[in-house]
């Protein structure tokens, strides 16, 4: 597999390996679209990688883990505990335990923003709203995974129909013009609407804005079912889309808390590494 890996330079600088008494744990998040790994040394992020998921999740997990270890400058033998998470969590063969991504996103979000009580996670194939307590423990959640509407897949499909790189959708959102109204809840029919709008000569930024607002409506509706308790944070790959972020804030009528420089797509893997640290600290590590 030719995996394109994205190493975060800012954390490269933070890498701090103190061999000896260091506690090394890792989280590996095998999602539907992207796979992520985070290595913690003494509770600080020392290595983190994002790469594409593949049809061979076991190999992807191994490769992404090894890359994160390389990034952190440690070997697998140094790692006290590994937690696998994401839809492919059971495929992380070398993990000591697998934990649901719902718990991991909550834990990671709390670590980065201790005042967070509601986590909105938009991944490739599902959207979740997670309620956590002041310790980052999972209290409740709602998920949409029966339909692509409101997921990263929805955005990808729409971007494809507009021959637009998905990464550029966010900037089009802010380039002015009234949003088009996209009414279809179904991704397939929404795509038909987009094609009709293109054929009517409507400018792309207006269509993009309409799409992102329609996604925000679906996500906000899901989050409201759970009940919005501030602070609200957003995780997952779609959180990097500033247009979606802004649209959700407008629909929920709140300002969400930012994670600063931390990539929101890594929060699940970070949470898994933190859960791994709990298990390592609790003396439940075998071997």
């Amino acid at each position, binding site marked *: 597999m030719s995996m394109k890996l994205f190493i975060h330079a800012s954390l490269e600088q933070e890498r701090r390996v103190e061999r000896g008494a260091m506690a090394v744990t890792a989280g590996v998040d095998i999602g539907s679209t992207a796979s992520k790994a985070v290595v913690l040394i003494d509770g600080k992020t020392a290595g983190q990688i994002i790469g594409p998921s593949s049809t061979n999740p076991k190999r992807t997990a191994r490769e992404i883990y090894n890359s994160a270890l390389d990034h952190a400058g440690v070997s697998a033998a140094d790692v006290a505990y590994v937690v696998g998470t994401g*839809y492919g969590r059971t495929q992380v063969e070398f993990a000591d335990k697998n*934990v*649901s*991504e*719902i*718990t991991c996103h909550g834990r990671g979000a709390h670590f980065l923003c201790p005042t967070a009580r509601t986590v909105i996670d938009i991944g490739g194939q*599902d959207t979740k709203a997670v309620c956590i307590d002041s310790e980052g*423990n*999972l*209290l*409740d*959640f709602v*998920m949409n*995974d*029966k339909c692509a509407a409101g997921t990263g897949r929805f955005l990808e499909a729409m971007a494809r129909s507009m021959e637009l790189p998905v990464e550029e959708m966010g900037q089009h959102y802010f380039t002015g013009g009234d949003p088009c109204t996209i009414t279809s809840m179904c991704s397939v029919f929404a795509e038909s609407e987009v094609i009709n709008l293109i054929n009517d000569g409507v400018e792309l930024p207006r269509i993009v804005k309409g799409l992102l607002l329609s996604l925000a409506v679906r996500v906000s509706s899901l989050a409201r079912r759970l009940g919005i308790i501030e602070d609200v944070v957003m995780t997952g790959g779609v959180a990097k889309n500033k247009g979606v972020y802004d649209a959700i804030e407008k629909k929920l009528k709140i300002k969400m808390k930012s994670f600063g420089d931390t990539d929101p797509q890594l929060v699940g893997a970070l949470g898994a590494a933190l859960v791994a640290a709990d298990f390592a600290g609790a003396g439940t590590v075998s071997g």
Partner: protein
Amino acid sequence: MSRVSETGFSGLLDLPLNRLVDKARDEGGRIIGYTCSYVPEPLISVDGLVPIRMRAPGVSGTPLADTYMSSVICSYTRSILEFALDGFYNELDGWVFTASCDHLRRLYDNLSYLENPPFNYMIDLPHKISEPAISWFHEELKLLAGALSADFGVDTGPDALRNAIAKLNSFNAILREIGEMRKEDTPPISGRDFHEIVAACASSPKYLLKDKICKYHESLKRNDGTDDYRARLMLVGSQLDDPEYISVIESVGGLVVADRCCLGSFPGLAHIECGTDPLRSLAEHYLAKTSCPRMMEEFDSRIENIIGIAREYRVDGIIIETMKFCDCWGVDSGLLVSALRDRNIPVLRLEREYSLSGEGQIRTRVQAFIESMGK
């Protein structure tokens, strides 16, 4: 925890009408299909009648049924019609329905058009449990008894009914005892396996299964059980006749120790008190004990019933499974979730289709639910 079935009953669930049904027919039995817990089983067990709870195992899509039914009819109803149209139930001698929900009423309508089997009967069903309602339901049962006598020439008199009730009580007592073993710290039977035997018993002529179920019961007494689970769960919901659904729940560490499903242990296995008029006793029992959300003014008793079972079986959390488009459970489940949470009982609501799908999504939700309980 994931366990392979060791009950020896799994082969009875592969077909809607299994080999024991064929055997009963060969022995002269007349097979009566039914689809709802309000159908009084003893009344369709008299004098050589054999009641079989209808299932559509392995159904993959409902293209034929979708021609005749709206897409907002629940997938259990559509699956049964699909199998009926496909001829899977051609060996049935009759169907008995209750007007329990509009979806099953539409199934009755469609089967009436098919005229296969010719005996297709609908019992009207009151929405309240009261003295007049019981009397009304009693009258309905009298009409059914008359129709059965007329069509099949069977004896539906008090002695025949008393005998049928006694046999069902005797059979269900064994299943209840097996179910009560799940109260133990180390239950000798998983939720999956328990559901398998309950479903197998509902899908088979009971008189042909009694020895087997007795032996299985004895074998469980010698089983040390398992403590390989993270959380004791109760399953609440409507029609569920696929043990693999519970297997998915148990694959992430839950152990289903109690259930309140249409084809489960509560209240379907309850002892029937038989008075001087056995038909009246059936009316009282089935109207009062079935505990379906279709009944009005019964929410409080349903919730108390569920909480009572949850306490008795020391469950850590409750999973409410509702079939998509089920009017009764769809509405009730929202209220149930709130009421259970008000009592500090962790609860997870899962929507599903009749046939098992989206196992990964179920696992993620159940695992997160167990994690949210700190288990």
